[in-house]
């Protein structure tokens, strides 16, 4: 305990010295980038926003770098408590208020995220990473010294910001009703079926899969549609297990987000290789690349 106290005073002395040497106007500049942060955004600014909101006790979710509903309500509550306009958007004023009222140890947070640790940043206990290795006494001390450290915290960050590279968010936005697995599976199917096609042709194949999920005469799941026997040649001959590229993924995301160049088609075929005469009887919508799309 004695040793810890000494090191603690050392830290404080150091921060005070740093604080004195640094100029005051850094205070606001170092927190956040100039961007306005809104719902749906991802990245390091969102990590900081979540950390700071959690420090103040507004945000109880995971610090994952994705501005979802939890962050949105936390920010609104913060805006309400601090007498700001309640819009759920982190503009300059909200960010300034947040930076003034909270602390953010960027290096610590980034490190925790990179290591994949379970952690939180509730005020006074930023080092509590939930792994059970913090002792109560230490925590209390931390809290006791919080006030002294506060003024210098942001300068500290400013100096250290370059040391730790930013960590990636640990979550991603997914379109409603879809998991990353489905997106991956669809990207596999699209790549296997249409990797030689223009981009729109790939979106179109993804759209057909989705239109089939909607259709009562096809299975109700993405996997059901894709693995339906005799439905896709790429599934039959194993090409579905090739590794898809980024283009197919983008095409799948576009299709899921509502772009449907096939205008509701549920069939497609390559007129040069189609073996079934039946397929020609379907009402055709249009041709994209090598494929004819039909209903």
């Amino acid at each position, binding site marked *: 305990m004695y040793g810890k106290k000494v090191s603690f005073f050392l830290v404080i002395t150091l921060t005070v010295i740093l604080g004195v040497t640094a100029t005051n106007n850094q205070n606001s500049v170092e927190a956040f980038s100039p*961007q*306005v*942060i*809104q*719902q*749906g*955004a*991802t990245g390091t600014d969102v990590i900081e926003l979540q950390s700071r909101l959690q420090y103040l006790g507004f945000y*109880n*979710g*995971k610090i994952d770098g*994705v501005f*979802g*509903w*939890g962050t949105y*309500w936390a920010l*609104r509550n913060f805006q309400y408590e601090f007498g700001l306009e309640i819009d759920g958007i982190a503009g300059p004023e909200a960010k300034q208020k947040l930076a003034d009222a909270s602390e953010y140890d960027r290096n610590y947070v980034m490190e925790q995220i990179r290591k*994949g640790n379970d952690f939180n940043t509730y005020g006074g206990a930023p080092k509590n990473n939930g792994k059970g290795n913090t002792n109560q006494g230490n925590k209390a001390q931390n809290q006791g010294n919080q006030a002294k450290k506060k003024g210098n915290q942001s300068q500290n960050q400013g100096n250290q910001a370059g040391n730790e590279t930013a960590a*990636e968010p*640990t*979550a*991603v*936005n*997914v*379109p*409603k009703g879809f*998991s*990353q*697995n489905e997106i991956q599976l669809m990207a596999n199917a699209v790549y296997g079926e249409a990797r030689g096609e*223009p*981009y729109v042709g790939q979106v179109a194949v993804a759209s057909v899969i989705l239109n089939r999920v*909607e*259709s*009562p*005469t096809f*299975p*109700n*799941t993405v996997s*059901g549609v894709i*693995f*339906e*026997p005799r*439905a896709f040649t790429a599934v039959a001959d194993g090409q579905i297990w090739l590794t898809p590229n980024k*283009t197919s993924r983008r095409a799948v*995301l*576009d299709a899921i987000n*509502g*772009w*449907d*160049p096939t*205008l*509701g*088609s549920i069939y497609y075929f390559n007129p040069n290789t189609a073996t079934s005469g039946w397929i020609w009887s*379907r*009402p*055709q*919508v*249009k041709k994209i690349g090598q494929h004819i799309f*039909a*209903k």
Partner: protein
Amino acid sequence: MIRWIAITVLAVSVTATAVWGYQEHREKNAILIQAENNYQRSFHDLSYHMDLLQDKIGTTLAMDSREQISPQMAEVWRLTSEAQADVSQLPLALLPFNKTEEFLSKIGDFTYRTAVRDLDKEPLTDEEVKYLSSLYDQSGQITKELRKVQNLVLKDNLRWMDVQVALASNDKQADNTIVDGFKTVEKTVSGFDEGNFGPSLTGTSRENKPYRFVKGEKLSKEQGEDRARKLFNIKDNINLNITETGKGSDLPIYSASYRSDGKNGYVDLTQKGGNPINLMIDREIGEQKLSLNEGLEKAEAYLKKYDFDDMEAFQSNQYDNLGVFSFIYKQDGVLIYPDSIQIKVALDNGEILGLSAKDYYQNHTEREIKKPKITAEEARDKVNQNVDIQTNQLAIIENDVGEEVLTHSFLGTLNNETYRIFINAQTGVEESVEKLSTKEEKFDPSL
């Protein structure tokens, strides 16, 4: 001597070939069996599920207490989707088996709607009970036929692989028990015509609706090309490929595409009026320079430029360096959900990479919005008491049966989840409850 050597070599090679051939044969059989097993499993599952389904519908009919009906309906609904999954696993692509699938889909839709409804306030009507018992009868007959086929399959040790061969070879000697059995099942279903389903119960497959907001003069191909060039903002020297849609399309459309500078552009324009239904540009996207918020401003400006007025940003999501925004039309302060537009913005330079306005052109119109009979406070009382309501707003949505209804929409939280709840503003019925969750933890954080 030489003769003996030759004989030995020959004997060895013949043996080796025989062994190799036998191994190949065994491997092939193993794979065939595996495939066969998959089919068998799906088929037996299907019979079982149908049987169970019928049983559950039967018990529902005998139930009186509302508390029991809802979970029971949910169970039936689950079973229908299981059965549908089973059907899709069978090699029936060449058999006309759509009717059975549609039948399953109809049971599913009906039971789902009943399961999520508050049966205390809105109990099953006599008609619905009648409908349910007709479903019971129909599923009973289907089950009977299926069980018959199943029995034959087991007794005669029939193989699905043979069915597939019989279907593929396409000759008339289709004296195949499974094929015949399924044709009988299908016939059984066809016997029940659509008349059984009241008007409010049809429309399970929300067919593509007609476009009701496509106005203007019909454009010639050249005019269409001009319009596409303006939308893409490309010069005359870039080659633009333009085609027309076939008879499967709901309305005539010009599709224009180009490829240049690492960009692929594609647009669907209505031939009447030249309205953009879809616009897509694909290219590699550089490092993020714009915030999602700035992307939203670009999207808003774009909508203004193309005269989509009174559109309100409703949802925004960042996928890597792309921003995808949804806009909803707002009339007299009421959000009109069916009239939506999606816009995609590259966050490296703010370029508009996509526009999807299909829903907008299909649904948009100036509506006559009636005054709500129920106030927001009254509607609030209809919401589950555990939900912590944060905001409310009038909105027109399309309900389960595809009708547009005026609702009070509430955003509320419950156990760290956010829900959107729509209460009909005329009748007080809970039209829809939606859990809003659009993010997912990365499975592999190193990605």
